[in-house]
């Protein structure tokens, strides 16, 4: 009898070290579905979140889109013909919603829906009758909508991948994805864990993989039966809660047998994993880079078509110690100084420039992966989202949106458009169109009447 130790599966995760595994090409591991079989690369969408607004005064690109001397975006210069800068797009729904500037900024960003009433997020007394505080976001987010629609056509290993870099807390201030109203989707924050979850299928022994799949199926079958019996005893509200749990198990089982799609560029990324220190402030750049590397490879391997990378959270308190010029004060603290405070302004420039450099790194990786005549970036749209326009006023008008990648020619890239006050819900509608899952409006329809004009080719 052949026995395989499960531990052997995990040899890729050497915490704190550089990890790489060679790629076997084995029939047993070929995907049931995916790009390799359809012959054309799929479209993908990625959401990229940074917090506390930006330097609105210097954010816009010059008329000729030459970014090489831009104070914030110089790192993006080589890719400027693949970008669209959006000025004058307002998160109008946030002004109707309950909740503070940051809460609405992040909870409405991808939902275009008002925050739900409730007493969940409260301080002091949280008891009945003290209901000026808020609940979770009030609608499905556009990434989850698109993921659900794509799942009707194709089963990928993950329906969507939400990655986070030091998001840490779990509250309405820290969630931008919602599977449904009141149902926040937590991001995956541990790059070590992600490495195992994403790439442990790439294993030299396909029999071990088959065994794990078999075992999981057997165990999950029993667990699902258990759930069904359990639910019969519950009251209505509890049953609703458990229905979702059971649905997640069903979904997990469906995806068990989907393995890595060994496209040309798909390989286990070489990583500098941060080990157990991934939540420490000073590891923010290392954690972020590992998450970006894995995100790009997850897309190249077609593990998913919908992803997000959330840097910190709204009201981000990250201290940018590694940027030498920046004061040892939190990003949120710095974002609150008056416009006349030159030192804080200089710091905010450095912080937002650093994020722009990270964005350039991600886009560079994606643009370096060839998929037929296109690059991965060309087949994708990456959407830079912020919960605010500017930190010290909490304005949710003129949010600094950038689109990158043409999504297979849907977007007319290489331009800067000033929309002069269009609601951001229309941008979300544009994204559904770009991904081939068009809707007429998304979230609050008043603020999402059709797509933004001028974005598409």
């Amino acid at each position, binding site marked *: 009898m052949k026995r395989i130790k499960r531990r052997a599966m995990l040899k890729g995760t050497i915490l704190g070290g550089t990890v790489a595994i060679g790629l076997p090409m084995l029939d047993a591991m070929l995907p049931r579905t995916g790009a390799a079989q359809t012959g054309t690369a799929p479209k993908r969408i990625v959401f990229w979140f940074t917090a506390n607004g930006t330097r609105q005064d210097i954010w816009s690109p010059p008329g000729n889109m030459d970014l090489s001397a831009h104070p914030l975006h110089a790192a993006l210069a080589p890719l400027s013909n693949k970008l669209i800068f959006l000025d004058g797009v307002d998160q109008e729904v946030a002004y109707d919603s309950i909740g503070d500037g940051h809460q609405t900024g992040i909870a409405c960003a991808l939902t275009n829906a008002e925050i739900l009433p409730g007493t969940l*997020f409260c301080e002091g007394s949280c008891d*009945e009758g003290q209901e000026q505080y808020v609940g979770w976001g009030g609608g499905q987010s556009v990434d989850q909508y698109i993921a659900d629609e794509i799942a009707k056509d194709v089963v990928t290993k993950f329906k969507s991948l939400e990655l986070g870099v030091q998001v840490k807390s779990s509250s309405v201030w820290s969630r931008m994805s919602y599977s449904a109203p009141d149902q926040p989707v937590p991001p995956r924050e541990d790059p070590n864990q992600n490495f195992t979850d994403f790439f442990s299928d790439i294993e030299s022994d396909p029999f071990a993989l088959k065994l794990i799949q078999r075992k999981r199926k057997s165990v999950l079958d029993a667990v699902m039966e258990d759930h069904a019996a359990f639910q019969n005893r519950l009251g209505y509200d509890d049953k609703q809660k458990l229905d979702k749990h059971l649905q997640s198990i069903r979904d997990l089982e469906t995806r068990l047998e989907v393995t890595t799609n060994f496209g040309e560029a798909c390989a286990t990324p070489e990583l500098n994993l941060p080990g157990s220190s991934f939540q420490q402030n000073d590891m923010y750049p290392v954690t972020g880079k590992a998450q970006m590397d894995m995100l790009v490879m997850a897309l190249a391997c077609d593990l998913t078509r919908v992803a997000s990378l959330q840097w910190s959270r709204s009201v981000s308190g990250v201290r940018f110690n590694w940027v030498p010029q920046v004061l040892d004060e939190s990003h949120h603290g710095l974002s609150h100084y008056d416009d006349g405070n030159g030192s804080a302004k200089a710091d905010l420039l450095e912080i937002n420039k650093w994020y722009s450099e990270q964005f350039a790194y991600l886009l560079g990786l994606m643009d370096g992966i060839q998929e037929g005549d296109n690059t991965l970036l060309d087949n994708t749209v990456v959407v830079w989202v912020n919960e605010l326009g500017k930190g010290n006023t909490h304005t949710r008008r003129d949010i600094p949106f950038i689109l990158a990648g043409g999504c297979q020619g849907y977007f007319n890239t290489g331009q800067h458009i000033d929309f002069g006050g269009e609601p951001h819900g229309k941008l979300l509608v544009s994204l559904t169109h770009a991904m081939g899952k068009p809707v007429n409006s998304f979230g609050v329809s008043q603020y999402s009447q059709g797509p933004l004009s001028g974005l598409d080719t």
Partner: protein
Amino acid sequence: MLPQGIKIYLLLAAVFLVGCSGSIGGGGELAINDDVAKSLCVVDTPIRRLTRFEYNNTVRDLLGDATGPADVLPPEEEVAGFNNQAAALTSSDLLIEQYMKVAEDVGARAVLDIDALLPTCDPGLDGNDTCALTFIRDFGRRAFRRPLSQIEVERLKGVFDWAVTDPDLGRFEDGIQVVIEAALQSPSFLYRPELGGETPVEGDVVPFTSWEMATKLSYMLWNTMPDAALFAAAEADELTTKEQIAAQATRMLDDDKARDLIRNFHTQWLLLTHLDSVTKDTSVYPAFDDSLRPLWTEEIQAFVEYVILEGDGSLRTLLTADYSFMNEQLASFYGDDVTGSVTGPEFRQVQLDPDRRAGFLTSAGLMATHANVNQSSPVFRGKFVREQLMCNTLPLPPNDLVIEPPELDPEKTTKEQFEEIGANPACAGCHTLMNPIGFIFENYDGTGQWRDQQNGKDIDATGEVVQTDDIDGVYDGAVELAIALAGSTQVQECVSSQWFRFAYNRTVTSEDSCSVEQLNDVFRASDFNIRALLVALTQTNAFLYRRAVDLQPEAGGAQ
């Protein structure tokens, strides 16, 4: 411009209603009637998912696995001030996926010592099937915190049989491992269903079964699964009367596992997690370095743990004690405030200068957390006292207000600067609630060290406390304020309601009025003894009963 008339909502944590009928079970009519349950302060009890903390403790007690495997799960939603609120413990695809992986890891570790799992059965002698069934029944009963039904036993046996007949597995251990994996992913393990017995005592009010009561007590007072004594009491159906339940609660508070409860509660109530990210400008505070943070936390934890579990248990002592717990490094940070010398890395009880320090409130950890990087913060300190100790709900600052702490002015004290800002009529409405309380703490700098002077001027630690139920007035220094807080009914009832929320995993509703009243009565009668409050939490109708499970959606509810 600010909107006019920003209202300050003050919670009167006191009783909303009087005249609730007191006890249940007087042989009344068994009519299904909402009013009966309401008048008895009985509400629905939602199922609740284990928190990561509870999961870790549970597998520690269930399988001896103390590796903290649940740490990789997504964090709980932090709502209503705590991370264990039933309403917020929802699930997500990621959580379910990680549950599977955590269960696999725990299962793999558990079967490394198969003899420990099966002390009474030897597969070589007794046969695989016999030992598997023995394990499933015994382990299952502890994992699900109740006896398994025959169907459940057969289901787990089916998983065992699959493994021992799979061509690539086949060992007895493999079978046990998948049984553990399946059990740890079952809703009966991951959730705490408290459905109640089948026979109403009155209206649609039902008591809990002894098995459910064992689990309720255990997670409330230990944040983990029941021990052998609780299981034995459940088996004998001896958790049905108030006296039986109180006796167990008293026993449990004497057990070391109650320390988990005390630490977990205070971590959240006193916002101690905020301490982990405290940083200071070392050009202003050269005594600060990162190694102080865990010491500050441990000081507060060791103190509350001692007072509640070994000391007099009194809220007054928590707020006013003139002693604390420190090691050498921390004592040296406190300097003259500590009487006598402390050596070595071990924490031990130390005497404090009673004119300078009082209870947890003036601890360096709290003072440093509620401060800015380069100065104290009267606003943050006042906010902490208002929200955490007085249960006030402060309105959020207006959305588009530019907020920044004043620049350091070497000519002025922090108080002088904040007084200027607080005088601005746009801010005064709310900040008169916070700043003057913060001024009373001005003897503690941004790291919590004592100071008599700032920028060459004497510290003025007076402040006027307004809009409270019962402690309005001018106070000079935090020791004076702490004594007032300890005697305040508003504070006492706030503490009681914080424990209610934490212990019952939900907020207080209007239907809880008689339970709240009962808790406050017991708390007062015990001279505000936290241990007495904890036992009292097992004696309310809100804890002892629930409304019978309604299998139909409520009219007008979700579809």
